[in-house]
C-alpha cells in the first residue's frame, strides 16, 4: 500500500516537536521512545505497519486541544486513534505523524434515564457504555463484534454497525451529539442531548468521517430500554441461494428480526473446528434472533419457521435456554478468530442489495477459484453487508498482492450490483484507491471540499479515504 513520502522537515524536527508537546501536556502523556511507539504502528489491518513520530495520550478535551494547537502550528499531521481495531487501516500512522490516542478518556460524564441518553468521554469502549447502564435495564444498541475493545471514538469515526443494527440502526442513528476539537485546537459542540438543533446536520457528516474532520472527545449517545428477552434460531440450508431466498422472504413478510446472520461452508467448518458451537456441516446457515416477551418471541418464530419450511431447511433449531442461545451465537462471534486459525486473512466489507445475494455469493466462489485463494463468508444478511474473508499466507511471496487483487475484484462486484465498498468498516487506507469505482471525480471533490472546511491544511489523517492522486494537491504534494 502506497503511503505519501514522509515530510523530511518534520522528521528532522522530531526532538523540538516532542519537546513542545511535553511542555504543554502533563507528565506521561507523550511517548517518543521507539520501543513504545511501535505499539501504535498498526491497527487491526496489521499487514501495514509504520511507527509514528510520537504518540500523545491526553486525559481531557483541553489537553487534546493543546496537543492539536501545537501540531497545527508546526504543520505536523495527526492520526486520531481510539482502540486501534480498525480493519481498514484508518488508525495506521505515517512516519511523520503524531498519533493522538483518546483511550485514557473513558469516563461516564452523565447518565439520564428519563431522557434516555448517556454522556461519555469518547475513549470509552463500546461494551462498557452498555455496561454502565445495564443495571437500570438499558443498553447502547450499536454492537460491533469488536465491542469489548473498540472505543466510541472509533465507532463514531467509522459509523460502525453491529449484528443488531437491522432493527436498531448503526452509530449515526444512535448518536445525539459530540464535543470535537478541530485541527487548530478550537473546541466545538455539535448536536447535544436533545438531538435536533435546527441547523445543518454537521454531526451527521462528522459521523463516518474517519478522523479527518476533528478529534471527537465526548459524545451523547441514545440508550434504549432492554427488551424483555431474546432468542436465536439456527437454520441450516443445502445451498447459499436457498438461504438467501429465505432471508428475502422473511423481510418481505414484514418480520423484523433484530439480527439475521449468514455463514457459508468454509466459515462453518473453520468455526466448528475452533469453537465447537455444534453447527451442522452444511452449505449455509442463518442465525436469526428475535426479541420480546416469551409469547411475542413465539409469535415471531412461528412465522419465521413457516417461511423457512418453504425452503426445506436441513435443520431449524430454536434455542431452548440461555446456554443454547449462547452456543448458537458463540460460533458466529468466533468466526473471525476461527478463520484466523487457518492463516492470515483479509476481511472485506462491501454491501449489496439483498436481492443480489445468491448471485454475488456464486461470483465470489468463482473468483476464489480463479485466484486460488479460499474465501469464507460470514455476514449480516438482513442488510446485505457482506464480510468475505480471504485467506492468504503473509509469508508467501506475492500472496498479499494476490489477496488484495481478489479483494478489489469482489468489492467492484459489490458496486456493480448496486452496492458499496464498505458497509461498516470504513475506507481508511485499505479501500482508498477503489473510491473511483463508486464515485465520480465530482462526488469525491464534494467530499474533499467538506474536509477543506474543517481542516483547511489537510493535517488530520490526511492520506486516508481519498485516492492519493486525488488528494495530492490538497496535501501539498505533487501527485
Amino acid at each position, binding site marked *: 500500500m502506497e503511503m505519501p513520502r514522509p515530510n523530511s522537515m518534520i522528521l528532522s524536527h522530531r526532538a523540538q516537536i516532542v519537546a513542545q508537546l511535553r511542555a504543554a501536556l502533563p507528565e506521561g502523556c507523550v511517548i517518543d521512545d521507539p520501543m513504545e511507539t511501535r505499539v501504535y504502528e498498526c491497527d487491526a489491518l496489521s499487514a501495514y505497519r509504520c511507527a509514528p513520530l510520537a504518540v500523545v495520550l491526553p486525559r481531557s478535551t483541553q489537553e487534546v486541544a493543546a496537543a492539536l494547537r501545537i501540531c497545527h502550528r508546526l504543520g505536523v499531521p495527526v492520526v486520531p486513534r481510539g482502540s486501534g481495531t480498525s480493519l481498514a487501516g484508518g488508525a495506521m500512522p505515517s512516519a511523520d505523524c503524531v498519533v493522538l490516542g483518546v483511550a485514557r478518556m473513558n469516563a461516564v460524564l452523565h447518565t439520564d434515564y428519563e431522557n434516555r441518553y448517556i454522556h461519555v468521554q469518547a475513549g470509552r469502549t463500546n461494551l462498557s457504555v452498555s455496561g454502565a447502564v445495564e443495571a437500570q435495564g438499558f443498553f447502547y444498541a450499536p454492537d460491533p463484534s469488536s465491542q469489548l475493545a473498540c472505543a466510541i471514538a472509533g465507532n463514531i469515526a467509522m459509523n460502525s454497525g453491529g449484528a443488531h443494527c437491522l432493527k436498531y440502526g448503526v452509530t449515526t442513528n444512535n448518536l445525539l451529539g459530540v464535543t470535537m476539537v478541530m485541527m487548530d485546537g478550537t473546541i466545538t459542540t455539535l448536536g447535544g442531548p436533545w438531538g435536533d438543533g435546527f441547523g445543518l446536520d454537521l454531526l451527521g457528516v462528522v459521523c*463516518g468521517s474517519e478522523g479527518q474532520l476533528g478529534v471527537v472527545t465526548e459524545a451523547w449517545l441514545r440508550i434504549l430500554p432492554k427488551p424483555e428477552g431474546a432468542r436465536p434460531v439456527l437454520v441450516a440450508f443445502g445451498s447459499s441461494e436457498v438461504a438467501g431466498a429465505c432471508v428475502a422472504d422473511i423481510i418481505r413478510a414484514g418480520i423484523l428480526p433484530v439480527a439475521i446472520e449468514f455463514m457459508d461452508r468454509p466459515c462453518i467448518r473453520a468455526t466448528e473446528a475452533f469453537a465447537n458451537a455444534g453447527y451442522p456441516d452444511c452449505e449455509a446457515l442463518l442465525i436469526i434472533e428475535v426479541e420480546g416477551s416469551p409469547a411475542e418471541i413465539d*409469535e415471531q418464530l412461528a412465522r419465521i419457521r413457516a417461511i423457512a419450511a418453504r425452503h426445506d431447511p436441513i435443520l431449524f433449531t430454536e434455542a431452548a435456554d440461555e446456554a443454547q442461545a449462547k452456543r448458537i451465537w458463540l460460533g458466529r462471534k468466533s468466526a473471525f478468530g476461527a478463520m484466523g486459525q487457518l492463516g492470515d486473512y483479509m476481511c472485506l466489507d462491501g454491501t449489496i442489495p439483498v436481492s443480489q445475494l445468491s448471485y454475488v455469493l456464486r461470483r465470489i466462489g468463482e473468483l476464489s477459484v480463479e485466484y486460488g485463494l479460499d474465501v469464507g463468508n460470514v455476514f449480516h444478511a438482513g442488510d446485505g453487508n457482506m464480510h468475505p474473508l480471504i485467506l492468504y499466507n503473509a509469508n508467501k511471496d506475492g500472496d498479499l498482492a494476490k489477496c488484495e487483487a481478489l479483494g478489489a475484484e469482489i468489492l467492484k462486484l459489490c458496486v456493480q450490483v448496486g452496492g458499496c465498498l464498505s458497509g461498516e468498516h470504513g475506507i481508511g487506507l485499505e479501500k482508498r484507491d477503489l473510491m473511483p469505482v463508486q464515485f465520480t471525480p465530482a462526488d469525491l471533490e464534494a467530499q474533499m471540499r467538506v474536509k477543506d472546511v474543517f481542516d483547511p491544511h489537510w493535517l488530520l489523517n490526511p492520506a486516508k479515504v481519498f485516492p492519493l492522486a486525488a488528494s495530492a494537491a490538497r496535501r501539498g504534494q505533487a501527485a
Partner: protein
Amino acid sequence: MISPRSEAELAEAVASATGPLLPKGGGTRMIGDVAGEVLDISGLSGVNLYEPAALTLVVQAGTPLAQINSLLAGERQRLGFEPPDFRALLGRDGVSTIGGIAAANASGPRRVQSGAARDAMLGIRCVDGQGVAISSGGRVMKNVTGYDLVKLMAGSFGTLAVLSEVSLKVQSIPEAEVTLVLDGLDDRAGLIALRRALGSPYDVSGAARAGGRSYIRLEGMAGSVAYRAGRLRALFDATLAEGAQSAAIWADIRDVSPLHGRAGDIWRLSVLPSDAAEIVATLLADSGGDGQRDVVYDWGGGLVWLTLPAGLDGNLRKALQGRGAAIKLRGAGAAPFARQSDQVSALSSALKAQFDPFGRFAQGVF
C-alpha cells in the same frame, strides 16, 4: 420559471444561471420570502427503483408524496418516518414532494422508534450551486463509503444543492396498531407517563400529548400489540383506540392539527423531554395562552409545537435558557434554522460557500 425534465437539464439550468434561484418542489415547505427565478423540480418525477423485498425505494426528487404513499401501500409498505403535511398548519397549498421532505428532514411521531427522514435516507443525488451533479450514499442499507453527504443535505432546505433523486429505506405496515389514551393528567404528569412508556421495553412507536390527553402508540403483530398494551395499561389508567381511530390520532399529531387555525406565531422547540412542561408553563404564563389548545408535544416531549402571540421571541429565548433549540415556522422572521454557536455557524457558512459559491440558493441563513 425554469422547468428541467431531467437531472442533466437541472444541472444545465443551474450552471447557466446568472442570479439567485428558487428551487421549488411542490411549494409546501419553501423557506421565508426568498427572491429569485423559480426552478421548478416537479418535472423530475417518477420511481427509478422499488424493491419491496429489499425495503428499498429510489425516486426522483419531484415525485409527489401522495404517489409514493399509494405505491408503497400497494405492497403493504410505508415510509417509516411518517412525513408530516404542514400545508394546513402554515396555510399553504401545493403538493408535498419527496425532495422537499428530504430537504426539510420532515419527520413525524415515529421518529422516537424508527428515526427521522435523515435516518431513512440511503442516498441522494443533487446538483450543487455550480451546476455539478453529485451523488452520495447509495441504495443499500449499510454504507460508510466516503463522507455522509446524505445527512448534510437532509434538513439543509436547499441551501447547498438541489436534490434530484432520493433513495429511501421503507418499512412494512404492521398488522396491528393501538393507542393508549391517558386522560385527566396535567402536562407534568402526562409527560412523565410518556417518558415512562418510552423507557419501558414495550417498543413504543409514538408518544405525544395534545388537548389535555397523552397518547402512546404500539404497532406490530396482533398478539404482541395486545400483550404490550396490557402491560402498559397495568402502569397507566388508559383507554384504547384501535385501528383507524388510532391512525386518526397520529395523523393529527403528525400534521399538528390541534394548532390549525390558531392565531399567532408558530414555534417548534427541541428540548429535553423532562424540561418541556416547565418551559411551556413559563411561556404560557407570559402569553396567556391555553395549554390545551396552543401546545402539542411529540417525541415524548422532546418536540414541542406552540403558538405564541407575535413579539414574544425574547421570552422564548429566556425560557429556553440554552436548554435546546427553537425555530419559528410561521410569523414575522420565520426561518428553518435556529441560531447556532459561533463555531457551528462559521462551519455552516463555510460549507455553504463551498457548495454554492455564487449564492444561487437561499442566502444569509446561517
